[in-house]
């Protein structure tokens, strides 16, 4: 926990995180690849060579950074792989060249070394290969899973650190798939045998080396074989990539159709689409089948072709070697070793080809993840934040202006607004008038573009994050509950709170009764997204959460607007208790809520048009007054 706290705090503010790629980004004007930075180019599919290189470099940089801490282990693992495969590739030569050519004649002459040496050497090779295999499989797993864990954590951290404007643009679906399916693709690769890939290549390498050492001419045969294999490989790579992508697309279509039909079964049946949907599914399934068969078919050509090339090489080695055995240049046993090795040398290629697909999707995933990690949060903690141990809750906007982007429209016109400590301020206005901008600035989802916004005289931009969080709490319309108990959900705002404090908070906002009526009281699991309790009850829990946090400033962003009438009545009293003596900014919805405010602000088109106590505004006969009479009229009916 301590590690997380220190880490999280430090990184959220000043970006010292190890994997944060955003640090390396040069300023946009000097950046040739500004258009590829971050998540910008995620949907693009075609890149030129330079762009490809840039993206690949970014992915590799990420991997390199993620490997910090396990690099030593990876190096040892690499050595173990090399030694193990060297030992394993040597066995045919020991059985052939050493045992038959060297050992057997000696043994027949009565020299026991001819018996012991090959057997012992073989045993040593076997034990070395086997035990190192065990060791490096474990080590690779540990190292790669540690890297994956680091990556997961980093993506999570980055996601949390990124400002809400990013989240609004990028959508939760994408963030989630970066963190799940993309990292899953990496996991599959690590799982499914990056290990075997490397060991396969090593095995091929050593076998080739041994063949070259044993007999340079056989080596030449092997060299000839490499040429068709190279072309075959290129052919396969090119076609497999296309086929794989096609299969992915057709399977996705099929899956979408399936899931939609099943989840929308009532619409399907009510509109008699059963047969039409089945026919269409058949069509999609057939397309998928054809793509699949084509994709498998490629492998079905590759595999026998590799085998053919291998077998032809074996025959050629046999012919050339056989002649030289006849001439006495080569031992028959060594020929055996060479022939067997030639037969084995191409075997890993099958496997490498099979991993090609998962390598591809892992690469694509890594590109997207590295893009996400390159994003910079808009709101960051300054280097030396100012502390504010105690807070009265006095808020001041001075010449504060806000726009979402440098060239975007002004969302909030220059604003001067002073909210004394303890005042309850209600803000009303039409949709899009800019009410929630006030909230977003105060909650520091964004920073003001110009001018200043202070809390107890301290500029919000300079205030330490944890002090800000401690003093300013927000309750939103969507009272999100996390899976876990009610107790945990209330204590979310105050993790060290005792059970009594939690219950006290619940009682204060009037949530205690309904919580006690739940099957397990405060220990009731709220299920995913608070499924089992009503919207009003959920809002009460979030009030209790805010009460427990005991902030000096409270922001209510349409906190009761989605509630129906009975639920609203349920939370109204709790709301008043929650407000207490705090400074409060209420985005107002219902008259009942506005009525408890000390002061009302009417906002239109990003500026304040009326400001005063509810009574004064009503008396003045302005806009709020009209609103109030309209309200009263509907209430009376």
């Amino acid at each position, binding site marked *: 926990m301590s590690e997380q706290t220190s880490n999280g705090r430090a990184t*959220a503010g000043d970006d010292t995180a190890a994997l944060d790629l955003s640090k390396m980004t040069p300023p946009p004007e000097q950046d040739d690849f500004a258009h590829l930075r971050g998540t910008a180019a995620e949907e693009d599919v075609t890149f030129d060579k330079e762009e490809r290189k840039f993206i690949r470099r970014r992915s590799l940089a990420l991997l390199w950074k993620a490997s910090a801490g396990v690099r030593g282990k990876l190096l040892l693992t690499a050595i173990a792989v090399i030694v193990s495969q060297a030992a394993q590739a040597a066995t045919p030569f*020991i*059985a052939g060249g050493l045992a*038959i050519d060297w050992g*057997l004649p000696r*043994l027949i002459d009565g020299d026991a070394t*001819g018996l012991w040496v090959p*057997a012992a050497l*073989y*045993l040593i090779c076997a*034990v070395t*290969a*086997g035990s190192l*295999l065990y*060791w490096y*499989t474990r080590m690779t*797993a540990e190292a790669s*899973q540690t890297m994956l864990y680091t990556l997961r*954590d980093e993506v*999570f951290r980055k*996601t949390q650190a990124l400002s*809400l404007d990013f989240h609004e643009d990028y959508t*939760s679906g994408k963030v*989630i798939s970066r963190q*799940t399916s993309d990292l899953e693709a990496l996991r599959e690769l690590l*799982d499914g045998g990056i290990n075997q890939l490397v060991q396969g290549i090593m095995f091929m390498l050593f076998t080739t080396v041994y063949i070259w050492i044993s007999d340079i001419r056989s080596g030449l045969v092997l060299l000839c074989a490499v040429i068709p294999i190279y072309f075959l490989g290129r052919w396969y790579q090119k076609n497999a990539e296309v086929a794989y992508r096609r299969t992915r697309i057709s399977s996705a279509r099929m899956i979408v159709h*399936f899931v939609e039909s099943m989840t*929308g*079964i009532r*619409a399907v049946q*009510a*509109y*008699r689409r059963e047969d*039409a949907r089945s026919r269409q599914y058949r069509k999609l399934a057939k397309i998928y089948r054809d793509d699949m068969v084509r994709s498998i078919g490629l492998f079905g*050509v590759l595999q026998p072709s590799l*085998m053919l090339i291998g*077998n*032809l090489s074996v025959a050629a080695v*046999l*012919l050339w070697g*056989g002649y030289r055995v006849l001439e006495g240049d080569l031992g*028959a046993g060594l020929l*055996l070793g060479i022939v067997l090795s030639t037969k084995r040398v191409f075997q890993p290629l099958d496997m490498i080809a099979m991993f090609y697909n998962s390598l591809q999707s892992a690469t694509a995933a890594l590109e997207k993840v590295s893009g996400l990690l390159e994003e910079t949060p808009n709101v960051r903690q300054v280097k030396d934040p100012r502390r504010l141990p105690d807070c009265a809750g006095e808020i001041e906007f001075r010449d504060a202006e806000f726009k979402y982007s440098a060239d975007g429209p002004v969302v909030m016109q220059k604003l001067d607004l002073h909210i004394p400590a303890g005042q309850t301020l209600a803000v009303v206005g*039409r949709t899009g008038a800019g009410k929630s901008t006030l909230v977003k600035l105060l*909650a520091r989802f964004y920073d003001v573009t110009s001018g200043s916004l202070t809390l107890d005289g301290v500029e919000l931009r300079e205030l330490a994050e944890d002090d800000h969080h401690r003093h300013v*709490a*927000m309750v939103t319309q969507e009272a999100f509950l996390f899976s876990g108990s009610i107790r945990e959900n209330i204590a*979310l705002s105050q993790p060290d709170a005792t059970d009594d404090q939690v219950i006290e908070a619940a009682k204060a906002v009037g949530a205690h009764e309904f919580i006690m009526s739940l099957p397990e009281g405060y220990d009731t699991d709220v299920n*995913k997204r608070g499924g089992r309790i009503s919207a009003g009850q959920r809002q009460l829990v979030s009030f209790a959460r805010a009460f427990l946090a005991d902030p000096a400033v409270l922001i209510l962003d349409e906190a009761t607007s989605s509630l129906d009438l009975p639920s609203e009545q349920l939370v109204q009293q709790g709301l008043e208790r929650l407000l207490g003596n705090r400074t409060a900014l209420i985005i107002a919805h219902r008259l009942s809520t*506005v009525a408890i405010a000390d002061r009302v602000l009417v906002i239109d088109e990003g500026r304040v*048009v*009326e*400001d005063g106590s509810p009574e004064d*505004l009503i008396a*003045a*006969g302005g806009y709020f007054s*009209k609103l109030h009479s309209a*309200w009263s009229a*509907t*209430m009376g009916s």
Partner: protein
Amino acid sequence: MQPSDQKSSADTTPQRGAQERAAQERVESGQRRTLIQALARLTPYLEGLKLRWFFGMLAAIGAGVIALSVPVVLGGLVDDIATVDATAAVVWTAFGIVLGLGVLEAFFVFLRRFFVIPPASDAETNMRVSLFSRLIHQSASFHGAWEAGQLQSRAIADLNMLRRFFAFGSLMLVTSSITVLVGIGVMFSWSPILGALFLCAAVPVIALGPAFRKKFIHYSRSAQDQAGEVATKVEESVHGIRVLKAFGRGDWARSSFKEEAATLRDLEVSKMRTLAKFQMFMVLLPETVLALCIFTGLYLASQGDITPGSLAGFFAMAVVLKQPIEGIGMLIGMVFMAKTSIDRHIDVMDIEPNVVSPEEPTTSAERGLVELENVHFRYPDASEDLIKGATLRIEPGETMALVSATGGGTSTLLNLVPRLYDVTGGRVLVDGVDVREYSLPDLRSRIAVAFEDPTLFSTTVKSNVLLGTGHHRNDDNPGEGDPSHPHRDKAPRLDQLDEVLTEALHTADAEFVHDLPAGLDTRIGEEGMSLSGGQRQRLALARAIAAKPSVLLLDDPLSALDVRTEERVTDRLREVLKGTTTLIVAHRPSTVAMADRVALLHEGTVVDVGTHTELLARSSTYAGIMRPAPPSGEELMDAIPAAHVDDAAAPGAPADFQEVQP
């Protein structure tokens, strides 16, 4: 996708209990089935596969046996070449044989795939399509109990597994076994002692394979489940990001995420450790035995008991047999997995749909009369009826609002009319005939529904709206007729479609579609544009209107619309609905305003029917439900024209709030 009533009414505990019991029973019946019985169930799909599978196996055996001949040739060569009078002919012969067989081996491997892959894929596809057709005819209650994701994995992962089993696993198991047996036989013929030694290594390698796989799969599943937990944490942290930011609890979320991620990491490492152990074993045991074989073989050769050629052949054979021996263990594991997949497939296929057309359907002239007679309904596994004897008659052309407290069963009642669910007591009649006596297409072509939760499909806007017209246009079959729509006289004709479309979109205030990138041909859904809840709801409403049914069922169709849009749609609907029998579930007075009469559903029965005003006056229950919620300030603000703001004297506004000059 469940109607909202069910969640609040059905007690989840007994429901889950019964579902678990049913699942348990299915698992047990699957276990009682043998592999042969299970395969027999698949016979219809395997017709095209049988012969080609057999040829494929012959090819595979051919390739396997050829592979074995190389060591034999090598052994012979080593012996022959060592003789004094060896000539080039010996080498050429060996070369010829190795070359010929090598080409043949590759060809056989190609043939195996050529024979089995297409028919195995066909079998897979046919099973998949049958599964889909089966599921699409299952009732809504079936789909309430089975998650789409569950069904999906049966349709994809399980059937992929079966294809691999038919095309590869089953075949290679037979072939590898034969190859290994023959190979070891040859070894015995060279030297029984060496053969016996080799057997000592082969048996444990084969025997331990399945056990290892089982353990590996166990870890693999746990890791997968754990990956699900990690994904849940991710989803929560993203959906709840506002709360986390508001309370500065990112660290808390991160630490609980890290905990799950660490568990995942550890599971993955344990899994790989199991693999590591197994791999070590697979190398150490056979290779140690081979070291022993070298020792023994050399000794035997020095004694003249075997020829150096046989010794060479033996080693060559050991190398060739390595792959099939390791493979057999894996293939046995695959048999178990295939069996499980078949069982899972049969489980679902064996469930009979419970809402089907009768054997001899009746029909009647289409008028639009809907009657409920003492209707009872209980959700499967709920402990009591949700609807307890509702009786109601909706006259042809009448618009009837259905009102109840939340969870009172109004949505459920709508579902009973087109038989999305069947009543558990009493009857529902359409045009004087029990809905269960119609053929389903006949019944459902009389009715159109707009669900509260609008389901749109991933296709164009146009196809979505015209879904119920009987002329559903899809890209492949433009103007495809709909054999399931017997009421062609009532349904719009093909040449009227554009008109129908325009009218429906107008009525539902869904003209925003013209502003979409490709207008009416814009693809929506998963791979297309995503629409807001209100937009989706309006399209779903347009779809119901476009179907021009004689009975229209609207489940709170305007709930996601803002006040002004709602008002517009209400006005237009009132016009369009004239002459169409309409049942509309209403939660707001504004919706009720569309209806001629209102039926109040309370505690499972229709307790009162009358006009809105009558019911307000005489029923306190109704008044309680329908008491108008005060509109929000924002709504009122939106309703007051902007001019008012400018007109406002704004006496309270201090000077410093005025716009500052640049």
